[in-house]
């Protein structure tokens, strides 16, 4: 069975084909088919556990076209990712089955959802960078069409476009990085690249460049500063899409790629430094926006960016394992939070948290599950988020990057604060608008409950994972780090508790202080405005003006000028033809005639004798002279030209 492991993603593909063909008949049942497909892949993957835990690496490769091979590979890393992703995709599709019930365009929706999941699976099991890139880009397409699912809405269509183009900027860097590696090794295959790197076939500077460029792709897909701008807008899509993008696919693809290529990253200190800086900026930058966001999904989107920043910082501090751990834990609790958000929005009818409040009364299961997710992301001991966050903090501390460490600590506090702000505002206290709350249907609650359990226990995966990936030691335990991170989280929670639950502190009193920064953060630092309205718009305008001008006045201009000149010249030649050439012909005839006249003259008058000489001179002279002075311009012109030619040739002869 193990030999055919590369066929294991086929159930997903089959589901995709079924949905693509019969989607219009199946309607929302497509979701169930997709869930079953993904579930089958999950189960099949589980059967690979013995092989993977015994340290085997399953590989299958084939020729795509002469010179380039594609292939599949399952080792510890791809196996665990495969398990997590297929599990989540399955739950998200099951959830969509009810969530999307009354929507139009379900064939399109589910086709792309399943394709999204299938691409992510392909990305994980690829054994080479080219195949990964293919899956990576197809995910970009899926995100484009799913974020823009409600295409009649301009904002949704723009958000899809923004996601595609922003990530495309990163992708181009990534492609360049892949090409650097390919040019140096002649292969896209991970193992071949790694062995070339360790044998010194690729120089360190090339590795540094390649890893840096590839990190560019990660910045795009995993929404790191400054290419994070697409992710907050991505909430324009239906909620299951957000769950898929934030938890299972897309943003996790970037992290997976870096962990996969970590043997290369490890050796390039410069790249690691850049990664750490980018991560550190992102962590805080996004958390600050989350505090002031009033849209349920937007808060979660900012928190995703921030949490991804944690992973990036860890990767910048040689902490691939903590990063992976956080990728997995975050996947579970973020899927939970998004699906919970969807469940709430579904019943309340709006995503604006200022209009919610008291939802717990109607949605006890959703509310309880969400509490688990919130506690997990806040980093409370006993929940999965704590485990991986702790690992990251320990790693960063041990690596000696104290500045990043303090930023992370601060962000930990902010995270706890904004997550509990969200929780309290949504689920507790009194209703702030008139809505009819109700609990969601079972097929939406099953995923929530399962994910709630996962959010508590996925942290326990740490030790088995260490065994799976042959990691013998992680960063040393350090009580100061652990206590300070817990303290930071508690401060955040207490802050939120005081302001939004107990309402002991009334933020209205501080309006004058807060409103400035609030506006700044709510407008996302005006960064999006700057990019979209200034850079992009002016780029389009100015580049258009310049190229159109070049086109019109230079490239086409020269051609038209040439054509016109030729036309003018041809007009002149027509004139010249008439006067010079025709004139010349006439003249030649005349000259010939004259010469014949002269010979006639000689013939008659010289050979006939000189007797009549006097008579000739007197009689013929008048006729001849009359001919030469015939008053025609061309005659004079002709003689002028002949004269000039004579003079010029004489001068030429002299000099």
């Amino acid at each position, binding site marked *: 069975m193990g030999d055919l492991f590369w066929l294991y993603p086929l159930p997903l593909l089959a589901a995709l084909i079924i949905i693509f063909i019969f989607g219009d008949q199946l309607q929302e049942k497509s979701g169930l088919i997709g869930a079953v497909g993904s579930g089958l892949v999950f189960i099949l993957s589980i059967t690979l556990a013995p092989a993977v835990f015994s340290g085997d690496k399953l590989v299958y490769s084939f020729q795509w076209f*002469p010179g380039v091979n594609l292939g599949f590979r399952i080792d510890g890393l791809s196996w665990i990712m495969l398990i997590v992703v297929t599990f989540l995709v399955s739950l998200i599709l099951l959830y969509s089955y009810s969530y999307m019930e009354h929507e139009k365009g379900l064939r399109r929706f589910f086709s792309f959802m399943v394709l999204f999941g299938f691409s992510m699976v392909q990305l994980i099991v690829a054994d080479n960078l080219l195949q990964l890139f293919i899956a990576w880009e*197809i995910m970009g397409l899926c995100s484009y069409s799913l974020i823009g699912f409600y295409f009649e809405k301009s904002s949704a269509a723009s958000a899809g476009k923004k996601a*595609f183009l922003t990530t495309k900027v990163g992708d*181009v860097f990534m492609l360049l990085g892949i*090409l650097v590696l390919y*040019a140096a090794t002649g292969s896209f295959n991970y193992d071949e690249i790694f062995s070339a790197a360790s044998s010194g076939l690729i120089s360190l500077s090339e590795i540094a460049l390649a890893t840096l460029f590839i990190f560019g792709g990660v910045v795009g897909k995993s929404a790191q500063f400054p290419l994070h701008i697409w992710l907050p807008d991505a909430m324009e899509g239906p909620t299951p899409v957000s769950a898929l993008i934030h938890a299972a696919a897309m943003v996790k693809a970037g992290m997976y790629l870096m962990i996969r290529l970590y043997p290369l990253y490890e050796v390039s200190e410069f790249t690691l430094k850049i990664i750490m800086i980018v991560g550190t900026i992102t962590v805080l930058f996004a958390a600050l926006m989350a505090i002031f966001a009033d849209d349920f999904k937007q808060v979660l989107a900012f928190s995703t960016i921030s949490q991804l920043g944690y992973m990036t910082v860890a990767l910048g501090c040689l902490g691939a394992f903590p990063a992976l751990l956080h990728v997995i834990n975050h996947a579970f609790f973020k899927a939970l939070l998004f699906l919970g958000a969807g469940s709430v929005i579904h019943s309340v009818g709006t995503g604006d948290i200022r209009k919610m409040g008291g939802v717990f009364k109607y949605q006890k299961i959703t509310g309880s599950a969400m509490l688990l997710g919130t506690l997990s992301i806040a980093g409370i001991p006993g929940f999965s988020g704590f485990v991986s966050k702790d690992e990251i903090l320990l790693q960063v501390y041990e690596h000696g990057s104290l500045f990043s460490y303090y930023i992370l600590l601060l962000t930990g506090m902010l995270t706890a604060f904004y997550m509990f702000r969200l929780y309290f505002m949504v689920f507790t206290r009194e209703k702030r608008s008139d809505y009819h709350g109700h609990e969601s249907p079972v097929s939406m609650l099953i995923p929530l409950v399962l994910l709630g359990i996962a959010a508590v226990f996925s942290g326990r995966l740490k030790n088995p994972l260490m065994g799976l990936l042959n990691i013998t030691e992680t960063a040393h335990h350090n009580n100061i780090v652990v206590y300070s991170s817990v303290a930071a989280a508690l401060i955040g929670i207490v802050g939120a508790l005081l302001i939004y639950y107990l309402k002991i502190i009334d933020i209205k009193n501080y309006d004058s202080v807060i409103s400035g920064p609030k506006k700044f953060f709510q407008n996302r630092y005006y960064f999006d405005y700057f990019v979209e309205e200034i850079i992009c718009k002016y780029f389009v305008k100015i580049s*258009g003006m310049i*190229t159109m001008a070049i*086109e019109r006045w230079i*490239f086409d201009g020269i051609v038209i000028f040439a054509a016109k000149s030729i036309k003018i010249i041809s007009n002149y030649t027509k004139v010249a033809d008439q006067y010079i050439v025709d004139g010349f012909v006439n003249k030649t005839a005349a000259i010939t005639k004259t010469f014949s006249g002269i010979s006639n003259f000689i013939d008659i008058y010289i050979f006939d004798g000189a007797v009549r000489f006097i008579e000739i001179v007197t009689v013929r002279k008048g006729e001849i002279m009359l001919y030469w002075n015939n008053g025609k311009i061309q005659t004079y012109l002709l003689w002028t030209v002949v004269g000039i030619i004579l003079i010029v040739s004489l001068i030429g002869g002299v000099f």
Partner: protein
Amino acid sequence: MNWLFLIMVFFPSFVGIMLLVKKMTDRTAKWIALTSSSIVFLISLYFYYMFDKTTSSFQFIIHVNWIESLGSSFAFGMDGISMSLVLLTTLLVVVVMIFMDYHSDDVKEFLGFTLILETALLGVFVALDFLLFYVFWELVLIPMYFMILHWGGPRRVYASIKFFIYTHVGSFLILVGIIAMYFYKGSADGVYTLSILSYLDYNFSDKFQLIVFPMIFIGFAIKLPLVPFHTWLPDAHVEAPTGGSMLLAGVLLKMGGYGLIRIGFTIFPVAVNHYAYIMAVFGVVSMLYGALLALAQDDLKKMVAYSSVSHMGSVVLGLAALNINGFNGATYQLFAHGIISAMLFMLCGILQYSFKTRSISKLGGLAQIVPKMTVFYVFAFIASLGLPGLAGFVAEINVLMGAFQAFKYLLAVALVSLIVTAGYYLLALQKVFFGDIKQSLVGGEFADLKINEKIALMTLTVLIVIFGLVPGPLIELFNLSNLEILARIGGV
């Protein structure tokens, strides 16, 4: 088999002339044209089936003495590169025939010209004699000229004359090059011949190559077209009728690429090495400049026309890389761009027919009016911007792989063009299809796809996906031919 080969090349023009001369209804004419072009396509498939992929030499050779005093013969044959372009031509003509409906003006004559054009195009790709090559090369201009002139848009006279004269200048440069080669070789070894095959292993002196190659290169570059010799293209496309545009972008431009490979890069190895970097610069400039221009267009068809300039730039970039990835990428691009651009131009025509405009600023929210058309538009745009899994990507990645090995960071320019390409396509999609329905279109009756259009579009869609996922067979077709040319050039 030889007679079958001749039938494939000349049969279309016989039918074409018959259509022009005989009286019949448009409906009959369409079925005759469709049937005969399908037969030709089947014959080309048969040749593909018979084609021996394990050799790089020319196959199905026909050689009959023709004008012996000039050393010219009636010589045909195909290698892998020709084979792929022959398949492209016969296929696209069938698609055009399916697409053409019999409700427009003078369909019978249009179909006749299309079939004559097919013969000319096939002739260019299979001729193994310079005189024959040149005759076919020039013959291509005539039906296309009439297609633009008679069925074209408002500025058709200007466009058709510009097209004719501009590309004719290119032909003239090629002709001068051929004559120079003819006399140079003839006076050196006493054999005056126009047989292309006998030039493929002849070594011209370095000086001769360095002087004549730029001329031939510009000649082909005009056809391709390469910036700055491209200005005939947007005008020709904007005015050309849809079927004409499809063949113009789908096949006519490929003649330039084919000529570069067959004549330019094979016969002038020294010059090619010498000018490689300059050609690459021309290539990347075309890619970026074409893309930026496409971004600035309001006319959808003009946008697509400039995107052709951009994509053809990558052909030159790939060839200039002088390695197998670059060459395969360029050759693949000829095929991939052929089917993708045919689809794009067909869609432009359908939109124009339905909405009487192609102006992006006058359209909006079309996805709600013509959902089926929208699906194909999205697909075609995504294919053209080089999404992995579709045919364009295979070409693009090969070109980039080759070009990076050869030119390193010159490639950055090409990569920027990829972003711009994604930009103009997605912007156009957003403005034309998504969001609210444009006020001026509300309440209007607009036709979505007709059945023949659906069939034609589906055919191309399926092919674009197949050639994107399974590029092996096509690359194997010309891989060896490209390797042999590279062996001559001294590349890898």
